[in-house]
């Protein structure tokens, strides 16, 4: 069965600083990978996704993520964070051959300090 690990429960960064959120997955083949963001009291918004091809994917709000097969990782990055980026971030893996189910990581809460 697939699984997702987000090792950082909570990260605090200064506004304007760079950000990297870690995500490791377990899956028998190359999976579909996703990053979602959940602002307080909101639903989930899709930031970006990886299916195949270029391992560096660009998303909305200036985010990017890099798929590294050798490390089973799909880390999310942003060169300069804004106060509005404070939210909960979820990594998810989808089944390539299956019923379109997503398995979510436990999430990383991002706090931005002035």
């Amino acid at each position, binding site marked *: 069965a697939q699984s997702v690990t987000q090792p950082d429960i909570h990260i605090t960064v200064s506004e304007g600083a760079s950000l990297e959120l870690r995500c490791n997955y377990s899956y028998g083949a190359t999976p579909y990978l*996703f990053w979602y963001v959940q602002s307080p009291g*909101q*639903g*989930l918004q899709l930031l970006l996704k990886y299916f195949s091809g270029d391992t560096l994917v660009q998303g909305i709000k200036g985010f990017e993520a890099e798929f590294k097969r050798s490390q089973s990782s799909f880390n999310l990055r942003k060169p300069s964070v804004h106060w509005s980026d404070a939210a909960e971030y*979820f990594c998810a893996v989808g089944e390539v051959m299956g019923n*379109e189910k*997503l398995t979510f990581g*436990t999430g990383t809460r991002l706090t931005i300090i002035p």
Partner: protein
Amino acid sequence: SAVISQKPSRDICQRGTSLTIQCQVDSQVTMMFWYRQQPGQSLTLIATANQGSEATYESGFVIDKFPISRPNLTFSTLTVSNMSPEDSSIYLCSVEGLAGAGTQYFGPGTRLTVL
């Protein structure tokens, strides 16, 4: 991406009662999903609902507790039955995106508190 709405946005219910949550999509979709997000936790899939067939439930979730309807390609309901305080969660519906390949788009969620 699809525009998804949920009703109610939040509710406070008494133990032993039931609540039906509605999910409406602005376009026809084949697959709809219902998730539970317990306080401070990640999302757990409850069931997958395809139009015209019985919902498929994940391990730990049963139809008697979480009956689901999917009468057409733009609408679904999830009922939380015989509620207890442990059912206090955010319930989210999602739909498969046109891009396929597992992309899902989420509704805003229903925040349920059971007293």
